């Protein structure tokens, strides 16, 4: 089986500072990988590099996405090929309604696959169905994208967009931050509903809490630009109990 994603010895830097220092990670279809780690360890950097942010320079290593060189693709082509990033800090676009934004996104992705744009009625029906997954009010469709949304509403909107775009690889960057327990459950349900045997997910989180709802197949601990521990879902529980210091101490001993 071809893996969805295969990261080998990935090094990346920004403004001359190396942040990722040799990441190895392989995701098979159907798998959910959690990436945990203390603040500043490089989790968002990894997500940004995979999504293709230009500020980062890949200095070494390869990333293969569905058998193709991911690093060679533009950010929009990565998206059109099925990579989705739920942003830690979603941006606001004044005057552009959520519906209009999504229509542009969905139709751009459809065009890439040689499909014609969806009919307005069909599109509206699809949006309403997918919003229901995260219990989002359809009134949000006419509001400017993320403008004046609460932190929780922005995160739900990210997962709603994911549901509309049906990615084969979703990277969720701290989607749990800023959510109260009810919202967390709703968002997690929305994500779980999108798990299939064919797609993969990278769930980035600082806390174990989210992983009670989105149960991962593999847990990685990222620290100082490297994956220093990989284990099953129990690793997250151990981390919760013992904190990151435990890993830090052990890793520095090993290093």
């Amino acid at each position, binding site marked *: 089986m071809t893996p969805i994603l295969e990261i080998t010895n990935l090094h990346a830097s920004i403004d001359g500072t190396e942040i990722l220092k040799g990441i190895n990670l392989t995701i098979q279809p159907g798998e959910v990988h959690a990436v945990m780690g203390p603040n500043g360890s490089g989790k968002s950097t990894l997500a940004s590099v995979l999504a293709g942010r230009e500020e980062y320079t890949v200095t070494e290593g390869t990333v293969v996405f569905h058998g193709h060189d991911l690093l060679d693709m533009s950010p929009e082509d990565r998206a059109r090929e099925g990579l989705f990033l739920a942003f830690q800090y*979603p941006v606001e676009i004044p*005057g552009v309604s959520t519906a*209009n934004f999504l229509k*542009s996104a969905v139709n*751009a992705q459809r065009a890439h696959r040689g499909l014609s744009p969806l009919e307005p009625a069909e599109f509206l029906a699809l949006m309403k169905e997918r919003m229901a997954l995260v219990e989002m009010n359809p009134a949000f469709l006419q509001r400017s994208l993320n403008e004046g949304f609460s932190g929780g509403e922005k995160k739900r909107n990210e997962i709603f967009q994911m549901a509309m775009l049906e990615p084969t690889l979703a990277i969720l960057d701290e989607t749990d931050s800023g959510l109260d327990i009810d919202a967390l459950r709703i968002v997690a349900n929305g994500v779980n509903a999108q798990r299939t045997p064919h797609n993969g997910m990278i769930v980035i989180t600082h806390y174990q809490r989210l992983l009670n709802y989105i149960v991962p197949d593999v847990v990685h601990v990222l620290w100082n630009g490297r994956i220093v521990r990989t284990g099953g879902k129990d690793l997250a529980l151990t981390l919760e109990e013992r904190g990151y210091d435990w890993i830090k101490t052990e890793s520095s001993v090993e290093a």
Partner: protein
Amino acid sequence: MSEVPDSQHVLDDVVQREYQYGFSSDIEQELLEKGLSEDTVRFISAKKQEPEWMLEWRLEAFRTWQRMKEPTWPNVTYPVIDFQDIIYWAAPKKKEGPASLDEVDPELLATFEKLGIPLDEQKMLTGVAVDAVLDSVSVKTTFQEALKKVGVIFCPMSEAIQEHPDLVRRYLGSVVPVGDNFYAALNSAVFSDGSFVYIPKGVRCPMELSTYFRINARNTGQFERTLIIADEGSYVSYLEGCTAPQRDENQLHAAVVELVAHQDAEIKYSTVQNWYPGDAEGKGGIYNFVTKRGICEGARSKISWTQVETGSAVTWKYPSCVLKGDHSIGEFYSVAVTNHYQQADTGTKMIHIGKNTRSRIVSKGISAGRSQNSYRGLVRMNATATNGWNYSQCDSLLIGDQCGAHTFPYLETANSTATVEHEATTSKIGEDMLFYCNQRGIDTEAAVALIVNGYARDVINQLPMEFAVEAQKLLAISLEGSVG
């Protein structure tokens, strides 16, 4: 969904890279020689077989113009214009004034068809009557008969001078006097054609009225003159569009538009200005020096200006409202886009004279490339403007870091009961926004179009539906290549 314009159409069209109206047509034309003198004025007037009073009016304007100096206060720079190096009269051969469709030169019809303005009433957008002006003359005015039935006069200015001299004499120059400014004086002396509209008392004009201006001839100036009168309790929505061929030399366009709204009348005037802006290196393009002013003469009258300005090399234009009638309302909604080396100095004047007069200004400037975009606006509350109210919002959006955005608000208040509010913002299309769009599969060019249309939404929404879509496309097209 009630989303006004469908951005998808816009985005689909964005692939077109060049100014798409840059072609020129091979129409047999009668051209006057270059140069400007009293004889030029007499020639134009004679060509149009104008009555004596009209010629006198023009000559008076010409003499006034000769005593005036070109304004230098706008925040734009361009080489000195040689007014003797311009042709002041260019007309398609043989036809004098409008004709029935089968009398119009097929090449002319083809030109307008190519511009998306079919002059065959069967093919037209229903509900829009068009006056098509090519260079110095009106080619065809559609739906004139239908409009006549409700008493609406919609005809070329040259025809109005012949057919409705009383109205023309009463109103021409009543809002923009002959000596108002250098370019208004020049226009008054040599104006060739334009549209005339009169809406009788109590009539709601049953269709959108629209004039499409096309410059075709080389080295000519275009000086159109538009006069719209809305009598008591009437309503009209009018739209003006314009394009010109792509040429290396600059061409001068100096128009005057006058609006008069009587008691309880409303005039909604929209412009989609797309004169040739010059190329990416700043070569060629139209100098667009325009005077537009409306007077709310009667109580509770209303004048609303909406403009989407994407074209021209240099623009100098301040559609204004004189709020004379008590409780009258003035509005100005503007999107001005400049890219490459374009320069725009545009804004409005709201002159509050009557009691309880209200005005609203929404200006959205978008600058890209090495362009310069200035908003210049005056709000004046006269001593008589008890309880006058104005709200101004002036936003600037920058794309890239080599362009400039400037705001020059002027405020004069002589009445302490008046309220004036001004808000201004400057923002940039950030990497974060573009990356977010890219990450959803939207390429950068389409993302800029989407973001800019969102930014301009409050103004675009003021346009009649058919033109809103057109305007969105224009915004997208004029900003192509603005993000590297």
